[in-house]
């Protein structure tokens, strides 16, 4: 009995030692994204090819909202994660609060080559999505709403409406409805935006909180038009629902990659970060999911054919019709104040 138990223990020890040595030999990082089909698409397009090319192991983790975990991990002084894919605002805010490593772009040539609006001292854009005006083609077989001014025009376009229960993109849409040009939005005139929102508020049936909910509203015909993320609308359309959207006056949003302060594998993390925004890997992402590459150079690689490119939010012609969200403004004191004001707007 005794021998048997010792034997078992010995095996476990040998196993554990084996694990440790192999882990020491190959460099590794822990990468975190938001899970689901989105993380699966990245694994095929970006993560596996990067791991192979760099000869490293990429351990994956996923979490819908990384922010609280980032705060807790860095706060504890011993983060487990290295690289996070999270809404760009988190990277900027984290950078300001000392939760993110400042990036040395001399070691990240792929990032350095990206336009300045696509990176920050703490982050590089990883992928793009857009908050667009979507509508039911049953209700609007022709002459569909095509701008936020149309969305606000309840006489010309009668029907039930939904907006996201969040100030991001919604304040931008309100200002565009009030006549502000997409490239002249920032700094946002918050008072003007809320005033315009008060106008449409009685006509909003649902203020949605999750992407799934926005898709369900459109799919079931619960609303006739709404603001939604382009990938959600195209997924509903693919399943046969008569819905469509326009990139006109869409609000282009992104997630970015950033590295946690004190990341356990900092050097490897920087190498990975550079590789992950490589134009070819980036070009492979939209072949697997309806999101646009974070690196605009991806469109010059020839990997994305013109028809596919035309469907993507960050394709240059589409991007030119949209407003690029300023995460720098949203993480500024004025932006944070606007975010707090949202709660009282909703409950009035």
């Amino acid at each position, binding site marked *: 009995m005794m021998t048997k138990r010792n034997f078992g223990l010995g095996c476990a020890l040998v196993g554990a030692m084996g694990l440790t040595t192999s882990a020491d030999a190959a460099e590794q990082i822990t990468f975190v994204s938001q899970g689901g089909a989105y993380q699966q698409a990245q694994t095929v397009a970006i993560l596996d090819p990067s791991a192979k090319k760099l000869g490293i192991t990429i351990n994956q983790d996923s979490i819908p909202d990384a922010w609280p975990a980032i*705060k807790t991990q860095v706060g504890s002084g011993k983060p487990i994660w290295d690289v996070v894919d999270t809404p760009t605002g988190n990277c900027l805010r984290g950078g300001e609060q000392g939760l993110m490593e400042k990036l040395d772009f001399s070691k990240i040539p792929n990032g350095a080559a990206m336009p300045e609006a696509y990176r920050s001292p703490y982050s590089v854009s990883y992928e793009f999505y857009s908050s667009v005006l979507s509508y039911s083609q049953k209700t609007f077989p022709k002459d569909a709403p095509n701008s936020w001014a149309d969305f606000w025009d309840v006489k010309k376009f009668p029907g039930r409406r939904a907006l996201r*229960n969040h100030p991001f993109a919604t304040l931008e849409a309100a200002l565009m409805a009030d006549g502000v040009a997409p490239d002249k939005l920032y700094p946002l005139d918050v008072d003007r935006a809320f005033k315009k929102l008060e106008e449409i508020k009685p006509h909003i*049936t649902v203020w949605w909180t999750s992407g799934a909910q926005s898709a*369900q509203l459109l799919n079931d*015909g*619960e609303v006739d038009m709404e603001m939604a993320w382009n990938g959600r609308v195209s997924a509903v359309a693919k399943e046969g629902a008569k819905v469509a959207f326009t990139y006109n006056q869409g609000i282009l949003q992104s997630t970015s990659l950033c590295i946690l302060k004190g990341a356990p594998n900092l050097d490897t993390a920087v190498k990975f970060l550079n590789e992950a925004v490589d134009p070819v890997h980036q070009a492979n992402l939209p072949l697997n999911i309806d999101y646009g590459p974070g690196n605009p150079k991806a469109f010059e690689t020839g990997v994305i054919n013109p028809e596919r490119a035309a469907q993507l939010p960050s394709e240059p012609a589409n991007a030119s019709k949209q407003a690029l969200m300023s995460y720098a403004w949203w993480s500024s004191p004025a932006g944070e104040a606007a975010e707090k004001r949202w709660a009282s707007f*909703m*409950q009035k």
Partner: protein
Amino acid sequence: MLALVSPALLVILALIVLPVGWLAWQSIYHDGFTVENYRRVFTEDIYWRSFALTFEISLAVTVIALLLGYPVAYLANSVPKGWSILILSLVVLPFWTSVLVRAYAWLALLQRTGVINQFLRYLDVISEPLALVHNTFGTVVATVHILLPFMVLPLYATMQKIPGDLMQAGASLGASPSLTFFRVFLPLSLPGVLAGCTMVFVLCLGFYITPELLGGGRTVMVSMLVSRNVELYNQFGAASAVAVVLLLSVLAIFFVVSRFISLDRVLGQK
């Protein structure tokens, strides 16, 4: 006895008392002691509105659940054993489905293109779909559905302990069935009423998924403020202050109720 309950006490200590205590601590301590989180809760009117709405919804849900649950419990109590088991199983059956699934099921029933609106339009009762969901109404309906068992079970347990011969005695003295019910049965079942109402009311105060999915964004209950505050203020303290105020309200309710009835009974033990 102490040795037997100590594992359970340790689990409660480790999984409930310590984390809740830690959260409560965060609400008053963030780089030094602060009352900022509580000042916000007590001065900004969105918190008042949310607390008021939460109590209104909880009250409505409790009253409706009582009106629906009492006859069910009464029926289960007065039919033969086999039937009462069937009735109680039907009451408990929804527990086997997740709250999330049930919220979506209500959506399928109540929304503009949902079963109820389509049926009413088919009958020509209405010309425009009714707004049955994405508002407080839809939230209350779905919450009643979820909490109904917490009303029926304590009611049934209390009714079971009312001796049947008391009603016979009433009848033999010439009282009509309704008089025996109102003068004998109903007063004896009141502890169950209080127990069921307390359970439903308190559970409803903390509801999150149902108002989030069926409230259309306008029905902001306190639990939703808790989660929103984590996002808005990026620190747990702002959220835990709201939670602490809610917790204290619940304890206050339990305290008041316990002056009228022993807590054992509220929890369905005796």
